[in-house]
């Protein structure tokens, strides 16, 4: 395992030709799904069904079937919302930020991460709608001229959230689709099925690989990346405003926006690594999604995990330094109170365990890596739980202190959101190219003209 980091690692391993790239990536789409796929799908659909049943119970009987009550009026719903929005951040970060930073290795994983962004934001979007208990009234979130003559409160963080998450979803979807157009063209030209050809033709919009188009396309891609970068930072910043703009001790802190963004990237990368480990194995994409890719993502996990750890420490420091007894109480209570178990799960999974990634062998060994990233996923879910519940359960009035315990319906909705996410991921792997073909071809060895532009 002697890797020379002094020069750039190849994006693709081995010497595969451009035609091989197409064949390899389009293979899952050309073949009929096998038994393993259906077994996996049945598992995820079962999880999804649990979610559907839980949500039906929720709609029939109201939010009373959840464990939340005074003083913990926000619990699993907001925890799951922030968790899923956070997962979504990795996709845009990989596709936009790494694009602007000219990180070529992003090409192998960008498509998949973008798809995960879209699915994760869909999962996140469920929670604000269902948590009202009356989802058919969600239309009031949209400012439209109505018979009441009222507008939404544009100065409220919850309305900012509506705009941020819906813009984020739209822009991610558009970004993803723009990336897919050339690939639809490739698929259209290589398929033999008439039906598939029609579908791919419709989605390719008549893409012709013309350089007069590529020129604008590259420009547009750069502009979109330029917009998606501040957007991805703004979305989790605004999500953190849901907490930070309130005056609850434990929430009312200015560190929240950067802390949330770091946490979002951290959890998103962990989820991308978790899923990619399986995808590259199942679809034989080891040459395109290489160990180097996983290692680089592990390095980002290490970095963001350490940033999150710094934020945890800084919260305690500010609680002491501010001299605010309420703030101090919340943090002491968080670490040593009734929810200490959740706090220490969070700190162990997010700060201590990822430190193992300092060791190169750990970064490059798939089973160990998988265990660590799953810990990170768990830890990041607990982070949101800790922020939400521990700050609420003991507020200013000791007579109304309480302890939140989730009900089966709470857990069912959470399980259902995982079911939805993985069902969409599975369907995606069988219907669309999981790696951007045209982008991978562009970074393959010998794919670009030599420096003199062929004019030897």
């Amino acid at each position, binding site marked *: 395992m002697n890797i020379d980091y002094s020069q750039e690692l190849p994006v693709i391993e081995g010497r595969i030709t451009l035609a091989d790239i197409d064949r390899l990536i389009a293979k899952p789409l050309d073949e009929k799904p096998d038994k393993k796929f259906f077994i996996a799908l049945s598992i995820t659909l079962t999880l999804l069904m649990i979610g559907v049943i839980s949500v039906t119970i929720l709609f029939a009987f109201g939010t009373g079937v959840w464990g939340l009550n005074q003083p913990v009026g926000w619990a699993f719903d907001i925890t799951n919302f922030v968790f899923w929005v956070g997962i979504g951040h990795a996709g845009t970060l990989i596709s936009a930020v790494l694009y602007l930073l000219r990180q070529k290795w992003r090409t192998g994983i960008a498509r998949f991460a973008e798809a995960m962004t879209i699915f994760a934001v869909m999962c996140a979007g469920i929670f604000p709608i269902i948590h009202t208990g009356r989802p058919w009234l969600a239309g009031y979130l949209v400012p439209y001229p109505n018979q009441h003559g009222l507008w939404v409160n544009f100065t409220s963080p919850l309305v900012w959230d509506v705009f941020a998450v819906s813009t984020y979803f739209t822009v991610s979807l558009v970004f993803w689709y723009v990336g897919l157009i050339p690939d639809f063209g490739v698929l259209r030209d290589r398929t033999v099925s008439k039906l598939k050809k029609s579908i791919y033709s419709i989605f390719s*919009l008549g893409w*012709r690989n013309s*350089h007069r188009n590529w020129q604008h396309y590259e420009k547009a891609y750069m*502009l979109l990346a330029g917009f998606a970068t501040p957007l991805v930072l703004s979305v989790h910043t605004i999500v953190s405003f849901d907490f930070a703009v309130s005056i609850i001790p434990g929430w009312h802190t200015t560190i929240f926006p950067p802390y949330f963004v770091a946490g979002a990237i951290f959890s998103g990368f962990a989820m991308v690594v978790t899923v990619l480990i399986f995808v590259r194995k199942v679809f034989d994409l080891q040459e395109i999604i290489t160990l180097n890719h996983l290692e680089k993502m592990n390095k980002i996990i290490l970095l963001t995990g350490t940033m999150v750890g710094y934020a945890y420490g800084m919260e305690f420091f500010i609680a002491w330094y501010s001299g605010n007894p309420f703030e101090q109480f919340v943090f002491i209570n968080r670490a040593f109170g009734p929810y200490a178990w959740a706090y220490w799960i969070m700190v162990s999974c997010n700060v201590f365990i990822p430190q193992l990634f300092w060791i190169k062998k750990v970064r490059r060994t798939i089973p160990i890596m998988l265990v660590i990233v799953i810990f990170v996923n768990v830890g990041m879910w607990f982070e949101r739980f800790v922020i939400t519940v521990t700050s609420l359960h003991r507020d200013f009035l000791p007579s109304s202190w309480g302890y939140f315990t989730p009900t089966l319906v709470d857990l069912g909705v959470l399980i259902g959101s995982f079911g939805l996410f993985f069902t969409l991921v599975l369907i995606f792997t069988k219907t669309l190219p999981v790696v951007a073909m045209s982008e991978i071809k562009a970074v393959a060895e010998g794919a670009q003209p030599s420096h003199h*532009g062929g004019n030897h």
Partner: protein
Amino acid sequence: MSEKKLFGLSAIFASPDAVIHAVKKVEEAGYKNYDVHTPYPLHGMDAAMKLKPSKLGYVTLSFGLSGAAFALLFMYWAMSKDYPMIIGGKPFFALPAFIPITFELTVLFATLATVIGMLAVYFKFPSNNHPLHDTPYMKAVSADKFGICIEADDKLFDIEKIKNLFKELHAQNISEIYFPAPEPVNIFEPKFLTLLALVALLTSAATYVTLNKVIYAQPFTWMMNQPKVNVQTKSAFYADGFSMRKPVEGTVARGFIPYEYKGLAAPVVPLSNPLLPTASTLDLGKKRFLTFCSPCHGNLGDGDSRLRGQFPNPPSLHSEKVRTWQDGNIYHVITNGQNVMPSYASQLSRDERWAVIHYIRALQKAKNASPSEIVTAKKESSANVAK
């Protein structure tokens, strides 16, 4: 079969270097209407083709700025003009609180404009009927080959000359590309008509159900339909069938404590006025007096009824008797009634009765003041004015 119309002449090149070299030669030869087709964007091709930088950025900029302006102006109008409301002590135009939405809409407008502008305006998409589609040339360039296609509408287009040029450049696959034969369109085809009928049927059914059923459906009525007794409904539980019950005997309504000297000639214990004769009390008393008392007693309490003999005129309130009465006696008369005067207990609350008594006292004072008192009042008021 009629002669097919030529779209252009295409050639395939194996390597990126070869195609860039070929493009430079084509450009040198002076051709303008040609295009290069590559499976991915090639670096250096813009320069080889002498393309001007893409102007897409201006679309992005102008729509992004429009998005920002729209968001700010709309929020300004909604929050400060159309429905101004103070929220959290912020000003109506709370700029810092408007920034998140302004930013999001800027990004949204800019992104959508860039993508729609690129696809619809620059690329003229969708264009699935372009002559290049479904050709072996297109299949090759979308996989791993690099191609040039010189179009027939170029001014210098000469098929033999171009063929020679391509041959010189070691092109692999030189082929002519023709416009596809126009497909006959028959809208009376049974398949199409069936589809049309089906779509019409589905649309109508969906519209009917939505407009007549769905929008009137009550999602869940647990909160509305509660096991409780509503007013004015029939009851199966009570023998008399009424849901509403009469209050228990002796119930005292809020603010209506019974008058303990009811039916007596006068209160046994003298009552004193609980209110102070402040300006607001006198004002209330005046209003109530003019409403309820003045029809019989007259506007100034002189007993000059406005009822033109339809009801017997009461005696004046300025008589020696009434003026020397205690407040409690007047209260007793208002509450209990006297001779033909009925009780006003149900029209006037207790406080209102006491306020009316203050007003009557003021009237009595005004009507029966001695000249010395008038002078004093005048002096005081002129002294006030002089200040």
